[in-house]
């Protein structure tokens, strides 16, 4: 009797790329709901917009490259990039900025390097940095969280704003928008205010800005789902948060009024999202166990440095991209000791 030949292992495989990507999307749900709750429908609208644009761009480039389109779309990686970009941008960002960001992420950062698995930089973060340096005002205009905004926009109004219809009658940008907590902290510290003084404002919650800290908590829940499902390992997020916390606590200890305390940094800006969803992107991160610890810790430290002394209020994207650059070298110098080799041989 004849049989067809298959490759070993001759078993069902427990993992698949699609499943991994699907779990990332599922893990984004709690944070996304929180974000939408506090900052309105813009979050969802941008997710849809970015998702459609990313899939279209991916299909377009794959056709140009004469590569099979279907499996690449089906692996959901373009969608994940789009969703991560969408949750990182301000909810009322004009639609065309999102479009530019996504086209850059998919076409230039991902596909021009060879597609999934070959891109040295995190596409969502590279795109974020591109639009941040190109449209700094739009990119730093965040809505105030719902408890601080007396007249939140409804869905259609939000849609109108994003697609260039302007604000509804009687509303002004000044009334609705607010700088992010990180931005406020920076600006006011630059004005030589003391932290205890700054924190008098109704903007602040227990750790970070009101609303913001809760978004962080829900993304943290998503991160724990990823850990539980073994989509990511603990090393990068723990080292990332550890590096940031150690830096923040050290400077806070030196001068409590000039440097915010550690948990402020953890629950502000894109820290939690970055630690669990961005820095853990396997394609662009370090892959050896020791390398992941170094990679994560250095991202945390860089974030603190850029936030505290750099030119931008948040720094997750910059820190991740800088460390993407270092990942291959870190991997090279952190190879584990191979069974049966002495320590020196493993290096």
């Amino acid at each position, binding site marked *: 009797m004849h049989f067809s030949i298959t490759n070993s292992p001759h078993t069902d495989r427990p993992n698949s790329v699609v499943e991994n990507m699907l779990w990332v999307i599922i893990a984004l749900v709690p944070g996304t709901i929180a974000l939408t709750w506090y900052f309105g429908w813009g979050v969802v609208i941008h997710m849809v917009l970015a998702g459609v644009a990313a899939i279209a761009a991916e299909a377009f480039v794959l056709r140009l490259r004469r590569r099979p389109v279907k499996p690449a779309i089906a692996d959901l990686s373009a969608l994940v990039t789009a969703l991560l970009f969408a949750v990182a941008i301000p909810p009322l960002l004009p639609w065309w900025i999102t479009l530019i960001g996504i086209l850059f992420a998919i076409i230039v950062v991902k596909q021009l390097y060879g597609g999934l698995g070959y891109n040295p930089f995190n596409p969502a973060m590279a795109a974020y940095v591109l639009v941040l340096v190109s449209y700094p005002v739009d990119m730093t205009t965040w809505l105030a969280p719902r408890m601080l905004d007396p007249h939140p926009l409804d869905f259609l109004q939000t849609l109108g704003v994003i697609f260039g219809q302007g604000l509804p009658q009687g509303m002004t940008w000044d009334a609705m928008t607010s700088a992010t907590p990180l931005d406020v902290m920076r600006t006011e510290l630059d004005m030589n205010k003391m932290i205890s003084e700054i924190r008098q404002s109704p903007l602040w919650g227990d750790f970070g800005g009101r609303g913001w800290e809760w978004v962080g908590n829900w993304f943290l829940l998503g991160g724990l789902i990823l850990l539980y499902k073994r989509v990511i390992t603990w090393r990068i997020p723990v080292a990332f948060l550890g590096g940031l916390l150690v830096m923040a606590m050290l400077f806070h200890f030196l001068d409590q009024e000039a440097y915010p305390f550690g948990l402020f940094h953890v629950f502000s800006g894109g820290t939690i999202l970055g630690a669990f969803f961005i820095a853990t992107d396997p394609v662009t991160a370090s892959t050896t166990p020791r390398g992941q610890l170094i990679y994560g810790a250095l991202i945390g430290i860089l974030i603190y440095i850029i936030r505290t002394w750099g030119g931008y209020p948040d720094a997750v994207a910059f820190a991740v991209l800088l460390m993407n650059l270092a990942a291959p070298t870190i991997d090279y110098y952190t190879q584990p000791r*191979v069974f049966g080799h002495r320590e020196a041989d493993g290096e």
Partner: protein
Amino acid sequence: MDARVEQRSERRLYRFHGGLHLPDNKHQSTGQPVRPAALPTLLVLPLSQHIGAPAKPLVAPGDSVLKGQMIAAAQGAVSAPVHASSSGTVVAVEKRPVPHPSGLPAPCIVIETDGEERWAELPEPWPDFEQRSADELIQRIRDAGIVGMGGAAFPTSVKLDPDRPIDTLVINGAECEPYITCDDMLMRERADRVIAGVAVLRHLLGVRQCLIGIEDNKPEAIGAMTRALAERDLPATEVVVIPTRYPSGGEKQLIRVLTGKEVPSGGIPAHVGIVCHNVGTAAAVADAVLEGKPLISRIVTLTGEGIAAPCNLEVAVGSLASELIGQAGGYSARASHLILGGPMMGFALPDDGVPITKAANCLLAASEREDPDPGPALACIRCGRCAEACPVTLLPQQMYWYAKAKDLEKVQEYNLFDCIECGCCAYVCPSHIPLVQYYRYAKNECWDQERERKKAEHARQRHEARVARLARLEAEKKARLKKKKAALKKKPDAAGGAADPKKAAIEAAMKRAAEKKAKLAQEGVTPANTEALTEAQQRQIEQAEARRKEASDGKQTSESP
């Protein structure tokens, strides 16, 4: 008994990196006791059922052979003989399909059995093996054609003759691959045989201790082995229960788990004072030494959803897989792939018309559900799960990139040759990349390259020798020419110089000739070739001389003024 159990639980076990908890799928084939397979009408015995040089046939077509008769002899140090597994007639010595990943046919001896099972005269049983020297025992084991029965098929006698002292004998009853249960069943049903073999090996190697490692998913085997050992009461020998974790049955992994020692890279267990044998091999050693029987049969697991009645059969080596499957109820409707060995390290057979060899432990007829098509491999997303799973702590992902890029130097730098091809990396890969196949390919390329390099080196040496030889000949030729030229140049001023003896001799000869000429001229004799002439000739000459004289005289006169 109790003391032994306690001692067992006290032994400290060690971990190896990575590994997997796999669904073991062993219960399907352990429901019935091992039963002997029916004698096949045709036995196909490959000459190469082991690692090393193929055996050399001792029989020709037409010869009748007896059961247990050696029909092919070992050739060289690392080799093993082949015995007829039943009596009958040799019908062919030719290439036949064999179970090999290459799918290429290989030389086999084909026997048509006569059903009489007539035994050849066997070597005498040695129940008193303690009286025998190690060399005698090793020769017996070698002559019995015993090879590692766990799958590697390395000639056992070679492993029993290490060039350094051995402290520990490890007996491998881990059987970590899913589906396979032949060792489990052997230990359950013939534990005394295994222990008898252990006693022989223990005596032969003169080890301090012996550890029998069995995974904890085989409680019946553990019980049977513990009881058999208690009856025999071998000194410092223990059944050690180890956690079920693939690939703990890998030789280096089992040694690590039991002793904490790591076999050095590129080395063998003897380098850390250990020798490791499979339980099946131990049983075969017992048969060979205690009864004089060569290795002509083994237990084979037939399992998978593609087999109607999964079971373990005691099979004559050389039986065809197709016949055995028939005895296990045949294929079920769900059979879609046939695998020799386990699902992790076995390979797919394109056809079931291949013989069972000494190291063949399992025929797995898998259904589409058990061995689904993983679809085309996706790009590596560098998730690193392969590195987490690797029991050798390699970086499979990096090895994959370099193997794919055919950067053989780099892939070896990432310790390609430490890879044991266990398949853990490929199992966990979310992109379903056939990683092990890439490593096998890279290893083959490296070996090819090494062969090419050696060939090139040889060619280079030959070329260099040739160039040197030509240069030497050229130099000699030049030297000769130079000498000649120098001699020619010297000639003009050679008159005074008698430096050259040849020239001097020539000159002397010329001088002598000139002197002779002068002397003759003085005597008025003209030299002529005129000796030994006949009278008539002499007369003719004289007449001619007279005519010439006459003429010349007349001329002279007329011309004179």
